[in-house]
């Protein structure tokens, strides 16, 4: 094993524990937990057997060198992550809209109530 593999394995294991901890503190939904742990597990396997896996991918996809194939796959994975990020931001945006909407309507209702009180 190369030194970089040891570093990768340590980082990935730490991340796995971190994600589990987040779930334990209820900061993550279980679907998210499964997604992240699965992703980290794949990365762990890749970092343990990088050469074999990259050669396998190379053979399947027919891409130049083994390492190139690995890059291609990781770029693909990061797009997947980007997509998830987009969805998450979109959800947050909607929540902000809902919040803004609620505040706008409630302010108006308070105003109407005050005006009514003034009139009575």
């Amino acid at each position, binding site marked *: 094993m190369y030194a970089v593999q040891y570093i990768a394995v340590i980082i990935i294991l730490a991340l796995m524990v971190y994600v589990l901890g987040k779930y334990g503190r209820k900061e993550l939904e279980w679907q998210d937990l499964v997604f992240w742990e699965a992703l980290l597990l794949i990365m762990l396997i890749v970092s343990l057997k990088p050469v074999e896996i990259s050669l396998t991918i190379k053979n399947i996809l027919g891409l130049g060198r083994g390492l190139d194939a690995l890059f291609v796959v990781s770029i693909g994975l990061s797009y997947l992550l980007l997509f998830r990020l987009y*969805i998450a931001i*979109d959800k947050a945006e909607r929540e*902000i*809209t809902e919040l*803004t909407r609620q505040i*706008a*309507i409630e302010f*108006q209702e308070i105003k109407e109530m005050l005006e009514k009180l003034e009139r009575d």
Partner: protein
Amino acid sequence: MDIQLVVFDLDGTLVGASMGFDEVKERLRGRLEKEGISAELIGDLTPMYETLIEISRATGIDFEYLHSFLVELEAERAKDSYLFEGSRELLELLKENGVKIALMTRSSRKATEYVLKKHGIEKFFDLIVTRDDVSPEDVKPNSGHLKVILDHFDVSPTKTIVVGDHGYDLLPARELGCLSVLITSNESGRMSFKVDGDANFEVATIKEALELFKRLLKTYVVVPAYNEEKTISNVLESLLQYFRRDEIVVVNDGSNDGTREVAREKGVVVLTHLVNRGLGGALGTGIKYALLKGAELILTFDADGQHLVDDALRVMKPVAEGRADFAVGSRLKGDISEMPFVKRFGNFVLDFITAVFARKYVSDSQSGLRCFNKECASKIRITCDRYAVSSEIIIEASRNGCRIVEVPIKAVYTEYSKKKGTNVLEGVKIAFNLLLDKMR
């Protein structure tokens, strides 16, 4: 809507009678012939009252004498008159809402009073103007008849609705700029000839008119506005001609200019988004507020001055009449000579995308002038915050089984409004958003 005065026609609108006007006419002809008046002078007796005046002038016979024949026949006809189903309920609804009610009829005062008493509806009327109360040259279809009524109440014509079953009611309404409702299929009591005229709203019976008024009395206008201080004042001014202050809902979408202050000055409802959320966010807020207030109809109107308030009434028409659940003002069906080419192309692309997702083709999916009824508005779930909302609304309406109608309108493209709104880049974003929607 800001309805302050409703002017009703009597015969064929509120009441019917088994004796038709054709029969009245034939009996009047017989009576006149008995008096020795030539058939040439009598002609086809259309319209009867005016013909009597002419005969009196030509022959020197006292008009009151000739007129008494007609009054007699009218009184006889009034005896077997009946109130249409829904007439009383409509009058009650208007009274409950504090609307003034007037009667404008070509009938004689004697027959009118008799009919009103017979059916116990005289108490509803604040003013009764029969043909005997105005000079012959003022009797409707001349506008003098209606003018007397408007002057009496000192109400603006745009806040007045004339309800009748005949072109004779529509002509003075149009001339003075009042709104009009035409009752199209009350056969009994209708005058014996037709005059064409376009009404703002058309319903088959007075019973349907009751539903129409219920909707009109609770119509809200949602005006999404982001940095529109230059145009919003005029837009609100034009809307105030027809709508009440508490029915106009400006959604100030986090503007950083004086939009909020300008709108507040007009006394309309102003909902303020603390941060800018985009067109979809603003429309959603306005619609939610209107539904909370019990709106029956919700109109959306752009704040940049590209819509005409007359077009808004046209878009409202099918929904108010109950023929559709959702109407969209189509700039492409109307006059597009002023629409810049880039916009026309951008709209085409968006229409195509919308049609794919909605499985229904709407020729102008990006129009900001729309009208929903309560049922349709509460079914629509707005998730797109930005401009994609225009497509989303149509897609949602179509999927929820709302009856969608397109109404041709004219868009006014000022230099100012050209810079705003959808462009081709927005179009790509909308397409992407709609695709994502499929995956959520």
